[in-house]
């Protein structure tokens, strides 16, 4: 079960990474284009910086999901490093569950935000704000999917008595 789910997440992560690689490249090109237009052609536009910003926030939400899988979100681990592996695993499970509760709330209100954004236009691109806001529910769903894996990996580690969780 868990192995199949992890394989699914592997595939998903490949797609996410492809999106990140392409959009980061686009962000660099957009800002470089903006510099060239401004200093060589003395022409400003209101869309380029905004487009780069919205791509950036999308990337942050996707990158945050990948970081959950890699366990690379910032944390203070001095106290838990002093604890027994089993206690540490239990705390990880609780933290993951708490994160998921938070994400479920965040998800439901993100959907409201996307709906609210339908009546607002962005200042530069003139697109409905729903489009950039959609990074919130999309990213949170991805974060929830990866959190589920972390949760079950830790639970099964807890079952494998005495063995330390390998996340």
């Amino acid at each position, binding site marked *: 079960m868990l192995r199949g789910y992890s394989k699914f997440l592997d595939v998903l992560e490949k797609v996410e990474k492809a999106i990140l690689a392409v959009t980061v490249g686009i962000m660099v090109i957009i800002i470089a284009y903006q510099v060239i237009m*401004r200093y060589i052609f*003395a*022409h*400003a*536009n*209101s869309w380029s*910086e*905004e487009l780069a910003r919205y791509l950036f926030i999308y990337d942050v939400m996707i990158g945050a999901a990948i970081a959950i899988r890699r366990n690379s979100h910032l944390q203070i681990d001095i106290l838990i490093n002093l604890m027994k592996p089993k206690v540490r695993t239990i705390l990880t499970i609780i933290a993951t569950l708490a994160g998921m509760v938070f994400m479920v709330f965040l998800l439901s209100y993100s959907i*409201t935000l996307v709906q*609210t*954004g339908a*009546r*607002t*236009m*962005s*200042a*530069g691109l*003139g697109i409905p*704000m729903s489009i950039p806001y959609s990074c919130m529910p999309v990213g949170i769903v991805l974060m929830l999917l990866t959190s589920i894996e972390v949760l079950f990996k830790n639970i099964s580690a807890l079952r494998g008595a005495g063995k330390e969780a390998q996340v």
Partner: protein
Amino acid sequence: GCGGGGGDSGGDGTGAEYTWRMALNGSAPGELGYDMATFFKEKVEELTSGRVSIEFYGGNSLGSTTEVLEGMAAGVADITCESVGTLAPFTNLANIDIMPYIYNGYDHFQAVWGGELGQEILDTVGNDSGFKLMGAGYRGARIVTATKEMKTVEDFAGFKLRSPNLEGYIKVWEWMGSAPTPLAMGETYTALQQGTVDGQENSILDSQSYSFQEVCPYWILTNHVYSANTIIMDKAYFESLPEDIQSALEEAAVYAGEQIGQEVLEREDAAKEELTAEGVTFVDVDNAAFTEHFSGYAEANFPDLADWCNQIRALAPNA
């Protein structure tokens, strides 16, 4: 939405039936939105004999203007005082607030906003965007502060100028033949010093509050835009209020708009004296020539606003 906010609480010790969070840009007296809001707050509390209590949250502490407006239906804030133009993300008509060269002075501004046309604009913008707009406060005409002396439309060709990152402002300066550079306000002073830009545009009072006189010796009285501050609430919530409260709010907003207008005139005179003493040169320009230059602007860029612009121009006191 979630039903017009969490404003109606009675148990906060003020004894008020309605306690509202008012979101403000400025954080202290002296900022025009803040001062207009103060006139409004005092009048509302007086007219409702304390049934309404308003708490200020300055310095964008409840969120940026757009966030506050967007979240108003959910109760992020209950009320705010902002320029009509800040509603542009919600309705194109709000751009009427930043149309260049449609007024010829303060009296013209008052003739529009103190009369039927102004009310019609407030109502239409409000209906299109889902807000209740009340009262109109003069903010002082926008001028250009520059590192070099500028006089004619031609002088502005190729002029590098900081503008807000809003299509409406950028178009004004492109029409002028200038090179508008969208920059955050916080970066503008440094940009002027370093010569990244040669000027910026704002009202005299705002320009003074950012100390642009230290980097811009020439203040060009272009008077290109006359924008209005207004009191904004969620429309559905406003309509759910008892009628006596509604009319008290409207009366207080109109009063606040009139009071702030007088204050701005006095403060601008005082500011001009101070700034001249600090070495600023105020440059008068031929406003008729600039107005002429912008005659086809609305038709070309904001066709659906052209008719409104003409109605505003028609109310010019000496026309």
